C-alpha cells in the first residue's frame, strides 16, 4: 500500500475520493499532467478521453519501460510491436499477421460475453491489418473444477469462445487450459489470432493527409462497455439516476462476420488509406492513435455517430466499447464506393469526421466543441512509470522447500492419477465445441503440441503453439519464462517448423507491489534471453496487470505464442495417433536430472509446489529444435514434446492417441516425471532407426531407444521389474478427466 501512496499521493492532497478523475481511475498526479498539458481545467469529455487512453490497459504505463528489452527485428519482420498486430513474411508472396490479447477481467465478471468479445477483439486486430483471420488459439486458466463457481466460469468461457468463433467463421485450432487455485478468483482468457495477407494488402492504422474522411463502420454505439479499459463506469458524468450499465461489452459475431467481409473488400479495392478498430477506449482511441501516427489532427462530430440509444452524453460516446466497429480513413473521392460496399454488405456506415492539420483532436457534440486536446498527449505522451521492484523475501524459502522422497512411489498409480487431472487429461470436451476445420487448412489440429495449417496454393505450412506454465514461473520467473520460449519453439519444431516469431501475453498481479514488478521484470528478461538465443523476434504482445482478487495475486503467467514455418508440409504430417505396434520409442534430449520442482507430479501427487526448476540450456534447446525438424522432414510418424507430467505422461499420450501400448525402460523413477526442458519422444519403425541415429549424431544431441510400442499396457520396466497400467483404463480416465468433473 505505502508505495502507491508515495507515488500517487492518493489520499493526502484532499479528501475528495469522489473527484471525477479518481472515479475514472486517474491519479491526482495524472490529473496534474492533464492540467499542465491543456493549461486549463479539462472538460468532461476530455477527462473521459484521458482516463481511457491513459489506463494501464491502453497505455502500458507500468510495463513499457521493460518491454523495450525484447528483440523485435529480423529480416522477415514486416511490422513489429506497436501496430494492431505483428506481421512477418512467410515466403511465396504471403505475409502472416499475429496477435495475442487477454480478456481476463471481463471473463470473470461475465464469462460468456467476456470470452466472446475477447475473440471479437482479436479478430479485429488482425483484419485491421488487411489480413483475413484464418485461425484462433486460446490459452485459459481457471481455479480447480471441484468448486461450482470455477465450473461456471470454465463452461461459460468455453461456450463464449465457441459461440463467437464458430458463428463468425474463424476456426479455433489449438490452445491450452490449466487449473490452479490461484486462478479461482481471477481466470485467464488469452486469445491469439493468425491472419494471412498479400504484401500489397497490408493496411496500417494511420489517418492519412488533411481532408481524409473518417467513416465509422459496423455496429451502432451503445452504452455497453463504458470505461471498460479504465475499469470504472462513469456514474458521475451522467445523471445520478441514469442506468449503470455493466462495463462488459456484448458481442455479435454476425455483425463481425459482415464487417470482416466488408473490410476485406475495401482493402482489396484499395478504397481506404488506413483503418483502426474500435476496441479498448472506443472512439477516443480510434481517432487519436491514427492521427498521432500520421502527425495530424482529427475532427470528430459525435452527432454523426450511429447510436443504439438516444441521449448518450459526449463522454459516453467517447468511452463506449461497443463491439464490431471499425474506423476507416477514406480519401474524399473514394467515399461513395466505400458507402456502396457497406450498403451491399449490410453494415451501417457514418461519416463522422475528417483529418485536420495541427495535431489537435477536436470533438463536437450538439454543435459545441466538447474536447480539444493534442492527439499525441493521449498516446505517445501518456505517463510511464518505473514502478519499484524487489525480489520477494519468500523466494529463498520457496527454493529450499523441496520434497524428500523416502521411497519410490507406485508408478502406474501415479501416472493414472496424473491422467485423471483436468490439467493433463484430454481437452476434447473443450475443442470439440470449437469449429477447428473451417477453411480447409487444418493438417494437425487441437490435441497436439502445435497446430499445423497449410497455406493453400503453396507447399508451406504454419505451425502455432501457445504455452504457459504459471507454476514454473512462480518458482522462478526468469527460468520459467525462458523455458516457455524453448518449449513453444520445440512444439512447432515437432511438426517440422522453424520458429519464426513470438507474441507474448504477460498476465500478472498488481504492479504496485514491488514483488509483482520483480516477477514481471524477471519474466521479461527470461523471455528476451531465450528469444535472443534462438534469434526469434517478438512481434507483439499484451500485458495484463491487476490480476489479483482479495490481495491474492495470480501466479506470474506469461503465455508465449510461437509461429513456425514449414517450407514443405510433410504428407502425412507427424501426429500422435500414427504410432503402430512394433515401432521403437526414442528419447531425444539432455542427460536426465532428478529435479521435480514445479512438476505436475509433485503438485498432484504430493500437493507440493516448491524447489527451483532447472535452468534451460540454449545450446541444447537449439539442438532439440533442429533435430525435431529434421525428424519431421524425414517422415517419422510421431514426434512429441515432453512437457507437463514428464516422460510418463508423454508416452501415455502417444499410446492413448494411437490405441497401442508400450514398454519403456527406466533407471530412476524420477526421470519419468521430471519436466526438465529440451526433451522429446519419437516413434520410429525399426528400419527408421538408422535415420534417427544419424540425425542425432549429426546435430550432436543425445538420443536413446528407450522402449517399444505394442501390447495393451503402458509399462515401465526397471531391470525386469515392471509397473504397468492397462491402456483401456488409462484411455477412459484420460478422456473423462474434464467431463467427469463437470457433473
Amino acid at each position, binding site marked *: 500500500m505505502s508505495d502507491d501512496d508515495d507515488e500517487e499521493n492518493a489520499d493526502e492532497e484532499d479528501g475528495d475520493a469522489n473527484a471525477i478523475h479518481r472515479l475514472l481511475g486517474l491519479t491526482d498526479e495524472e490529473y496534474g499532467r492533464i492540467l499542465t498539458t491543456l493549461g486549463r481545467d479539462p472538460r468532461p469529455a476530455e477527462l473521459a478521453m484521458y482516463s481511457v487512453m491513459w489506463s494501464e490497459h491502453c497505455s502500458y504505463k507500468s510495463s513499457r519501460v521493460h518491454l523495450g528489452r525484447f528483440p523485435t527485428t529480423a529480416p522477415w519482420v514486416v511490422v513489429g510491436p506497436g501496430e494492431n498486430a505483428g506481421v512477418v513474411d512467410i515466403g511465396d508472396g504471403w505475409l502472416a499477421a499475429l496477435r495475442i490479447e487477454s480478456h481476463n477481467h471481463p471473463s470473470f465478471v461475465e464469462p460468456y460475453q467476456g470470452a466472446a468479445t475477447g475473440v471479437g477483439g482479436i479478430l479485429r486486430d488482425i483484419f485491421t491489418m488487411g489480413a483475413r483471420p484464418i485461425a484462433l488459439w486460446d490459452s485459459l486458466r481457471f481455479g480447480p473444477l471441484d468448486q461450482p463457481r470455477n465450473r461456471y466460469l470454465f463452461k461459460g468461457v468455453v461456450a463464449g469462445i465457441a459461440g463467437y468463433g464458430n458463428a463468425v467463421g474463424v476456426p479455433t485450432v489449438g490452445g491450452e487450459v490449466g487449473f490452479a487455485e490461484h486462478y479461482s478468483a481471477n481466470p485467464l482468457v488469452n486469445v491469439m489470432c493468425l491472419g494471412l495477407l498479400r504484401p500489397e494488402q497490408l493496411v496500417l492504422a494511420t489517418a492519412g493527409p488533411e481532408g481524409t474522411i473518417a467513416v465509422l463502420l459496423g455496429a451502432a454505439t451503445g452504452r455497453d462497455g463504458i470505461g471498460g479499459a479504465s475499469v470504472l463506469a462513469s456514474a458521475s458524468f451522467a445523471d445520478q439516476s441514469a442506468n449503470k450499465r455493466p462495463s462488459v461489452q456484448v458481442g455479435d459475431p454476425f455483425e463481425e*462476420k459482415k464487417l470482416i467481409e466488408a473490410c476485406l473488400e475495401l482493402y482489396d479495392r484499395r478504397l481506404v488509406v488506413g483503418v483502426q478498430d474500435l476496441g479498448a477506449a472506443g472512439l477516443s482511441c480510434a481517432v487519436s492513435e491514427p492521427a498521432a501516427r500520421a502527425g495530424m489532427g482529427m475532427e470528430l462530430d459525435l452527432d454523426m455517430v450511429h447510436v443504439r440509444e438516444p441521449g448518450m452524453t459526449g463522454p459516453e460516446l467517447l468511452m463506449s466499447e461497443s463491439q464490431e466497429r471499425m474506423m476507416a480513413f477514406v480519401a474524399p473521392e473514394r467515399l461513395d464506393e466505400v458507402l456502396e460496399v457497406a450498403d451491399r454488405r449490410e453494415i451501417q456506415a457514418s461519416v463522422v469526421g475528417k483529418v485536420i492539420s495541427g495535431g489537435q483532436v477536436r470533438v463536437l457534440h450538439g454543435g459545441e466543441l466538447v474536447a480539444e486536446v493534442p492527439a499525441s498527449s493521449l498516446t505517445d505522451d501518456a505517463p510511464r512509470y518505473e514502478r519499484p521492484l524487489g525480489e520477494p523475501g519468500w523466494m529463498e524459502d520457496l527454493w529450499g522447500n523441496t520434497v524428500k522422497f523416502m521411497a519410490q512411489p507406485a508408478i502406474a498409480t501415479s501416472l493414472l492419477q496424473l491422467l485423471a487431472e483436468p490439467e493433463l487429461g484430454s481437452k476434447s470436451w473443450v475443442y470439440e465445441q470449437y469449429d477447428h476445420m473451417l477453411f480447409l487448412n487444418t493438417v494437425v489440429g487441437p490435441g497436439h503440441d502445435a497446430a499445423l495449417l497449410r497455406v493453400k496454393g503453396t507447399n508451406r505450412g504454419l505451425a502455432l503453439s501457445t504455452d504457459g506454465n504459471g507454476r514454473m514461473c512462480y518458482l522462478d520467473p526468469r527460468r520459467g519464462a525462458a523455458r516457455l520460449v524453448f518449449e513453444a519453439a520445440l512444439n512447432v519444431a515437432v511438426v517440422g517448423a522453424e520458429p519464426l516469431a513470438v507474441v507474448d501475453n504477460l498476465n500478472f498481479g498488481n504492479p504496485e507491489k514491488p514483488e509483482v514488478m520483480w516477477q514481471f521484470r524477471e519474466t521479461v528478461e527470461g523471455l528476451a534471453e531465450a528469444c535472443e538465443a534462438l534469434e526469434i523476434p517478438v512481434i507483439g504482445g499484451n500485458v495484463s496487470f491487476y490480476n489479483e482478487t482479495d490481495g491474492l495475486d495470480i501466479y506470474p503467467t506469461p503465455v508465449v505464442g510461437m509461429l513456425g514455418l514449414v517450407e514443405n*508440409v510433410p504428407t502425412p504430417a507427424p501426429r500422435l495417433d500414427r504410432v503402430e505396434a512394433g515401432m521403437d520409442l526414442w528419447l531425444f534430449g539432455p542427460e536426465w536430472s532428478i529435479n521435480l520442482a514445479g512438476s505436475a507430479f509433485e503438485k498432484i501427487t504430493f500437493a507440493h509446489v516448491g524447489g527451483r526448476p532447472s535452468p534451460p540450456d540454449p545450446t541444447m534447446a537449439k539442438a532439440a529444435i533442429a533435430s525435431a525438424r529434421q525428424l519431421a522432414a524425414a517422415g517419422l510418424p510421431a514426434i512429441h514434446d515432453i512437457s507437463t507430467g514428464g516422460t510418463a505422461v508423454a508416452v501415455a499420450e502417444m499410446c492413448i492417441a494411437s490405441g497401442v501400448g508400450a514398454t519403456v525402460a527406466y533407471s530412476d523413477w524420477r526421470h519419468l516425471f521430471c519436466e526438465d526442458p529440451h526433451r522429446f519422444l519419437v516413434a520410429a519403425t525399426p528400419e527408421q532407426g538408422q535415420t534417427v541415429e544419424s540425425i542425432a549424431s549429426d546435430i550432436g544431441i543425445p538420443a536413446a531407444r528407450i522402449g517399444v510400442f505394442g501390447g495393451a499396457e503402458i509399462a515401465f520396466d526397471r531391470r525386469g521389474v515392471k509397473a504397468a497400467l492397462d491402456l483401456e483404463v488409462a484411455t477412459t480416465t484420460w478422456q473423462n478427466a474434464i467431463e467427469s468433473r463437470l457433473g
Partner: protein
Amino acid sequence: MFPGTNCELDAAYALELAGANPELVWHRQAELDEFDGVVLPGGFAHGDYLRTGAIARFSPVMGPVSEMAAAGKPVLGICNGFQILCEAGLLPGAFIANSGLSFICRFVDVEVASTSSILTQGATAGQVLRLPLNSYQGNYVDPTLTGRVVLRYKDNPNGAQGGAAAVANEAGNVVGVMPHPERASEATLGSEDGMILLRSFLGDGRPETRQTETARPSLRAVSGSTRSDG
C-alpha cells in the same frame, strides 16, 4: 451466400477440385437461370437469429432455388444449408439442438443408406464414409416420415431421427447433408471421402452430361451455385 454464411469458400474450393466451375452468388440475387445446380453452404446465415435458416428462407435467392428444385436440377444444402432447405419447405423435417446440448466438431462415420439421390448416386450402398460434423442444431426431426435418409450416422452423435445425416426429397434431386463433405476433400485434411459425394452431385457416373466450360471470374459470394457440367 447469405450474410453470415462462412463455408462458401471451402465449398467452392472442393467443388472446383471435383471438377465444377463454381461461382459465389449473393443472397439478394433473384435469378439463377445460368446455373446447372446450386449448393447452399454452411455457416450461420443471418447469425442463426430467430431460428436456423428461418430468415434466410425469405432471401430473394430462395425463389430461383425453389424453381431449380422443382425443375429437377441438383440442389444441395450442407449443414446450415440443410437447415435452410428444411425451413424453405424443399425438404421435410426440422432441426433441434444436439441431444448432448453442445456443439460437436469432429469426424464421424456415416453409412450410405440409399444411392438414389444426387448426392449418393456415385457411392455404394453400405459404404462407410468419414466426414467432419460441425453443428449445434444437427438433430434432425421429421414427424412426416417422408424424408428419405440417404446417409446414416454409424454412431448417432446428435440424436438425429433415424440417425439421419443426409436426407433427400422424393425425386432425389434435393439433398441436405449435416456433415461437411467439402471438409473431407483431401487426404491431408484427414479424409477425402467427401469427394465421392461431391463428384456424385456433379453427375459423376453420368459422364455424358459432363462438358468442359471456360472458367469465369468469380463474382461476389452468397449461396455457392455451381456451373458444373454443361
